[in-house]
């Protein structure tokens, strides 16, 4: 039995069974989106803009359409024009004209790689040849690549219709939103402070880097219905957004979620899906669209690069007194960067009495950003967590102790106002402080150790679940949350726990949008929390119904039947306790089959905190930073399957290290992306990383039946700052730009040497 922190003993939860979909995934049988083929299927390809910013004067498709094997060519004119205002699509409020124009450019292209036309042909090679025959006449405009350029008063305007409240209804702008968060009086706070550190940070645009490119197979039926097979984090999102873009009733589209080869937030929107349906409608055949890696990098949704000015002050005994932050995030070509989340996370781990945060969402000629694991929080934490480290250093206080002193606890106000309920931030710092890693001695030249923390909100949202009892007493769990990293196993474990079954007697199934109630994305670290809650309730529904059946057999009232440890019992002579398996064989005679159902709109989500310690060695000649050791502590509420929880913590840490050290979008002066492959978009390999040690901290989320907290995201937040702090302690330079690639670190080292030499010369003269 695994003892839980809230006093429950679990039989299945907390164990490490082999995942139910494992065999398919190690034998190559699992079907990902690109693995679907259908009789008569055609292949689609997309023509993309070679310019960052241009007006589309005309598109001629005749030659392409005439190529043998080409069955259809489409442009934005084949999609309905949608209103330039916020509208509901299913559950999401979006500007539909932006969504549509991102999928297929209308009038203007706004980034290198922006889609302008699509072709369906009998082979992918013919489709590619056809793209070369499409003639597009562009009027090239100057590109706007950074938030600084975009915010200048005379900057070229990307979206003629864009306005913000401050500048008023008559002023075209590239600033979509200005948010402000305020508490106390920062000027007063800084006056009281003994130490104040202020720095400006720049972080590069980075990509989620999932290994599987986007894909979609669209099959349009002449009766007006369509089916989409695709790898997505949210089949219901694909349905509602595709319906909106195509002008189809939502219920006429069925989305079948394929296995998904990574998403990290990047597969929570649509790109190819509606185009596959439209091409299928035009040709009468199923049409498969898959992206190349270059298309993924150029034209899907990376996360924002940012500029952050961060000033923080504390008393000499280490009490944080004030923080003032100015932050601007690249939204990409259309509004919607995660700058609001950045603002609300940047100092979320701390209790700071005086706070002023100004946050700007700015459009630039880069691809429209999408969610990326704790969106907006990692670049924000790079600023705040390195300044926290400097303040701790100035006070002569251990960085863990400094965080514990100032750390958020139950009752501490969050940036947006309401106080935290029970959270486990302090526990994560204590776990790091007590870890073998932190207690070990780091020796050798050019080596340093850095600590940083991170916060992520997590979300709840809606989920549906069905639990069926089979006649042999086994069960199936049907969910709409796609399995991106062990979801099936976790959900089956929750049902098995409730039902008293062996975990292998519960088969989990991820199904399509027609076969299960609405379920929001696998994202926001919500799946174990919210879908897990729905599965828990559905399994409880099964137990309730089974109690009724047992009561019938025993001629008792249902409330007289109890269920514990997998056995139904009741008081009375001759009553022999029954297992679910025994009862299941008698369902036909007691009222028919049993399915348990539940839907949740999960409230009371528990936010996640992580604290990470990283050791580095800096090569003083090249500026290359080697990660020597890394340990991450994270509050997970309750670990359902600890191996997959550790996996999330390790994976997020690895992505955070990539963001810290190497990953970066390189645009040239014309706004053309120059690193469109995985050789030059440099993600961590096996050789770049050590083993990643994990400390699972379990502070249950109040109100959740199992105490679960989302675990998917927060571990990516601390590493960039932890690495920067480690570099500072290794070689004495404070890095303020991401990535901390060899050229940037070397530059910082050389300017430090130049300064030191100049000082020595001045002292000598």
């Amino acid at each position: 039995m695994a003892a839980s922190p809230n006093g429950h003993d679990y039989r299945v939860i907390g164990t490490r069974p082999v995942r139910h979909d494992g065999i398919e995934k190690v034998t190559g049988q699992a079907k990902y989106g690109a693995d679907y083929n259908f009789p008569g299927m055609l292949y689609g390809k997309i023509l993309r803009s070679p310019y960052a910013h241009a007006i589309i004067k005309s598109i001629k498709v005749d030659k392409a359409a005439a190529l043998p094997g080409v069955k259809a060519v489409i442009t934005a004119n084949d999609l309905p024009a949608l209103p330039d205002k916020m509208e509901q699509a299913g559950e999401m409020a979006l500007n539909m004209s932006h969504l549509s124009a991102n999928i297929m450019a209308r009038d203007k292209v706004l980034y290198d790689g922006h889609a302008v036309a699509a072709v369906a042909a009998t082979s992918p090679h013919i489709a590619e040849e056809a793209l070369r025959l499409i003639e597009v006449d562009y009027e090239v405009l100057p590109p706007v690549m950074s938030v600084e350029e975009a915010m200048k008063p005379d900057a070229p305007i990307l979206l003629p219709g864009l306005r913000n409240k401050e500048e008023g209804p008559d002023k075209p702008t590239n600033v979509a939103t200005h948010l402000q968060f305020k508490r106390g009086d920062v000027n007063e706070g800084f006056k009281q402070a003994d130490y104040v550190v202020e720095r400006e940070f720049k972080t590069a645009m980075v990509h989620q880097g999932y290994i599987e490119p986007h894909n979609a197979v669209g099959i349009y039926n002449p009766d007006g219905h369509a089916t989409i097979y695709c790898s997505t984090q949210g089949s219901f999102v694909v349905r509602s957004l595709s319906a909106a873009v195509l002008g189809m009733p939502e219920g006429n589209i069925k989305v079948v979620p394929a296995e998904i080869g990574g998403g990290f937030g990047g597969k929570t929107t649509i790109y190819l899906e509606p185009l596959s349906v439209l091409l299928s409608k035009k040709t009468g055949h199923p049409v498969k669209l898959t992206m190349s890696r270059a298309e993924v990098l150029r034209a899907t949704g990376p996360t924002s690069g940012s500029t952050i000015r961060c000033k923080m002050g504390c008393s000499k005994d280490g009490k944080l007194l004030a923080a003032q932050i100015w932050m601007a995030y690249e939204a990409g070509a259309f509004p919607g960067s995660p700058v609001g989340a950045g603002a609300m996370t940047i100092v979320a781990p701390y209790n700071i009495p005086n706070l002023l945060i100004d946050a700007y969402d700015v459009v630039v000629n880069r691809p429209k950003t999408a969610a990326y694991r704790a969106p907006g929080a990692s670049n924000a934490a790079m600023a705040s967590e390195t300044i926290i480290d400097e303040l701790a250093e100035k006070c002569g206080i251990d960085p863990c102790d400094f965080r514990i002193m100032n750390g958020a606890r139950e009752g501490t106000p969050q940036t947006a106002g309401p106080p935290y309920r029970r959270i486990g931030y302090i526990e994560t710092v204590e776990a790091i402080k007590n870890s073998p890693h932190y207690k070990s001695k780091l020796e050798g030249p050019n080596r340093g150790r850095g600590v940083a923390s991170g916060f992520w909100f997590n979300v709840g949202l809606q989920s549906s679940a069905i639990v069926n009892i089979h006649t042999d007493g086994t069960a199936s769990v049907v969910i709409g949350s796609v399995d991106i990293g062990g979801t099936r196993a976790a959900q089956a474990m929750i049902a098995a726990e409730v039902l008293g079954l062996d975990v292998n007697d519960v088969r989990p199934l991820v199904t399509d949008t027609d076969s299960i109630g609405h379920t929001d994305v696998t994202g926001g670290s919500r799946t174990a929390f919210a879908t897990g809650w729905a599965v828990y309730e559905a399994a409880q529904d099964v137990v309730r119904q089974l109690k009724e059946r047992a009561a019938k057999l025993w001629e008792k009232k249902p409330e007289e039947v109890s269920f514990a440890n997998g056995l139904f019992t009741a008081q009375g002579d001759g009553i022999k306790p029954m297992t679910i398996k025994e009862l299941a064989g008698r369902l036909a005679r007691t009222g028919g089959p049993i399915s348990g159902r539940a839907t949740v709109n999960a409230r009371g989500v528990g936010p996640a905190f992580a604290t990470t310690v990283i050791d580095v060695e800096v090569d003083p000649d090249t500026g290359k930073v080697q990660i020597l050791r890394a340990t991450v502590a994270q509050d997970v509420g309750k670990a359902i399957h600890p191996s997959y929880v550790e996996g999330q913590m390790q994976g997020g840490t690895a992505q955070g290290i990539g963001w810290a050290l190497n990953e970066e979008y390189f645009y040239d002066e014309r706004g053309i992306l120059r690193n469109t492959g995985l050789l030059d978009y440099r993600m961590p390999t096996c050789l770049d990383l050590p083993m990643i040690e994990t400390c699972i901290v379990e502070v249950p989320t109040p109100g959740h039946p199992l105490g679960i907290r989302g675990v998917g995201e927060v571990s990516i937040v601390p590493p960039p700052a932890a690495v920067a702090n480690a570099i500072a302690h290794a070689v004495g330079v404070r890095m303020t730009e991401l990535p901390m690639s060899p050229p940037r670190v070397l530059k910082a080292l050389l300017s430090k040497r130049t300064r030191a030499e100049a000082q020595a010369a001045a002292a000598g003269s």
Partner: protein
Amino acid sequence: MAKKVVVEANINGEPIEFLCEPRQSLLEVLRDVLELTGSKEGCLTGDCGACTVIVNGRPLCSCLMLGVEAQGKTIQTVEGLAAPDRLHVLQQKFLEHASLQCGICTPGFLMSAKALLDRNPKPTEAEIRYALAGNLCRCTGYDKIVRAVADAAQTLASGQQPAGHLGSGPSATEQTERFLQEQEVK
């Protein structure tokens, strides 16, 4: 368009013939002609390793080899890794160590790891990391992958048979026991 070519190769122990266009990569042939979709396309430039197969004993990216170059070659793909009734020890260890999250990189890792263990049955951690550096995984941080490969090597070296049944459900014995129990209940 150049005419299609007949190619003869041995794939997963079977001598086969296929027709392919000269411009088709081996990966495209495997996936679209032979319906062996276990090899995945992640980049088409040899950077991610998701399409790794073993050709004449050497691991390589099937996206970088033409289908016509398979003539006369012996090729192993992930579909040929398990025996009919038993997983390969690497597959079993990947499952036990939870070495996959999304699973898209897994076939490539398995083939690179198999090629490693075929030529170096007792690799160090550094050797494992070096051999797998051509395969990208974005989910796991590699920790559990490296552990699985090390564990598989140890299991193979010790001469133990891995316990892996093909299918993670109950074994035949367990099923028989359950059947008998259920008979008793009735």
